């Protein structure tokens, strides 16, 4: 099985891959799905379009990359470090560097939208709050959620809530950004803003992995295509 490895784009020394999966297997006992023999290396700056014969498999792989589903076998290296899937607390610093938009993504409902956006920044003592505030104001404006900020998530429209979730995850300035059908989070009206933010993540050396039904997405990012078939990665299409 060839290891899907996109070109790093760096002619000199090989940069540390952001994601490196070695012979990884993961299961979703709820849905009875399983992926096995996953080998994947994603260098900094890679955009990856993930498709699958069964969408549940793509969802499972993205959950595994987000460390929400733990592998049953194999090794997952994130930014050069092997992840310890033994104790959830050790994965929290890794999760902090991962943005993940998925259909069930939620906000804390007894806090306002603004409190949700600030939650992580105010939780960690090492946050540059001035920088966070500036970035937040800019993103809130770009994604048109200014009027939603003082309300609890339940009191704003579903689309505003989804855009707020996208803003929250972009605010993390993640090293790995995962998105399932991002077009459903930001809508057509704010798609260019979203692509702009993804480009910033990629230019910082981050990795973007996504699934989509919107064909126009690929034209904007020239991604590597990965395909899951029968529970394993089978095909790599160069950009």
């Amino acid at each position, binding site marked *: 099985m060839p290891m899907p490895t996109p070109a790093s784009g760096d002619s000199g020394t090989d940069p540390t891959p952001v994601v490196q999966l070695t012979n990884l297997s993961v299961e979703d006992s709820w849905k009875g799905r399983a992926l096995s023999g996953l080998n994947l290396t994603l260098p900094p700056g890679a955009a990856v379009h993930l498709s699958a014969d069964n969408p549940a498999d793509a969802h499972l792989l993205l959950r595994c990359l987000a460390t929400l589903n733990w592998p049953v076998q194999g090794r997952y290296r994130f930014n050069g470090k092997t992840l310890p899937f033994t104790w959830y607390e050790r994965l*929290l*610093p890794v*999760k902090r560097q991962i943005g993940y938009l998925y259909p069930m993504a939620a906000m*804390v*409902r007894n806090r306002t939208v603004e409190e949700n956006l600030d*939650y992580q920044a*105010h*939780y960690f003592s090492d946050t540059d709050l001035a920088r966070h505030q500036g970035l937040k104001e800019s993103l809130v404006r770009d994604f048109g959620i200014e009027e939603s900020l003082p309300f609890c998530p339940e009191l704003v429209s579903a689309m505003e809530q989804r855009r707020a979730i996208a803003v929250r995850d972009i605010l993390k300035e993640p090293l790995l950004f995962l998105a399932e059908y991002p077009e459903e989070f930001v809508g057509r009206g704010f798609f260019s803003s979203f692509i702009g933010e993804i480009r910033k993540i990629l230019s910082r050396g981050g990795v973007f992995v996504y699934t989509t039904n919107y064909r126009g997405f690929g034209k904007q990012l020239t991604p590597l295509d990965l395909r899951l078939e029968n529970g394993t990665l089978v095909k790599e299409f160069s950009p």
Partner: protein
Amino acid sequence: MNWIGRTCGYVGRATLDFMGMALVRAAFTLRILTLLVRRPADGRSQVKRAVVEQIYFTAVQALPLIIPLALLVGSAMIIQFTKLSGEFELGKAAVILIVREIGPLITALVVILRSATAVTAEMSCMTVFNEIEALEMSGVDPMWILSFSRFTGITSAVVCLFVVFDLAALFGGQVVAWITTTQSGDIFIFQVAKAISGTDLVVSLVKALLFGLIITVVSLFHGYTTVRKVSRIPVSVSRASVESFFACMFVNAFVSIVFYL
């Protein structure tokens, strides 16, 4: 002989299930108590805010309920005991019944009815609607920000409510004793002061602390382990409240036996 084997098998399985259940809860308690020692540097302001909120919801908002309840219970106890003992040793009876037994139990019952159900429902909703996952994805530790704050807040609140309950119940008893008996006004309080010992106070506080711990741990545990269906939320709430109540009754009897038998 077949029925003996089946009975033994049933008893064995039930015992193993019970042991497993107790061990899982003990491990969960240990995880929360570990945070008390480690005190992570991040998120302290949010934890402080949550502790204050929890004390407000559990203790302050319960005062309009617990004070009238305590007055009623204290009065009823003294009325009954006056009939039984002929006005003899009313203070001692109040200490035995109210401070040692009824006070901690009714306080626990009020907290279970008001707060344990609320905490279980809140945590279950957070689990079912992926809010806990959202916190985790932000790198926030749910055990620290949600469990520890509720644990500290509710346990402190139970101890405070217990003190309020006892004082109000004894006051109710004093008023009834003054109205319905021939004793002078200060006799009842004098008898209470004479009857109450250091052990009584320690035992009552130990009970209140243990009740607070049990109620919080059981509520949080059922909240976190709610299966991902909305229809399971009421089941979790029901189980948490029944389990908390029985565990409190068991601990109450156990502590009384250890200290007074």
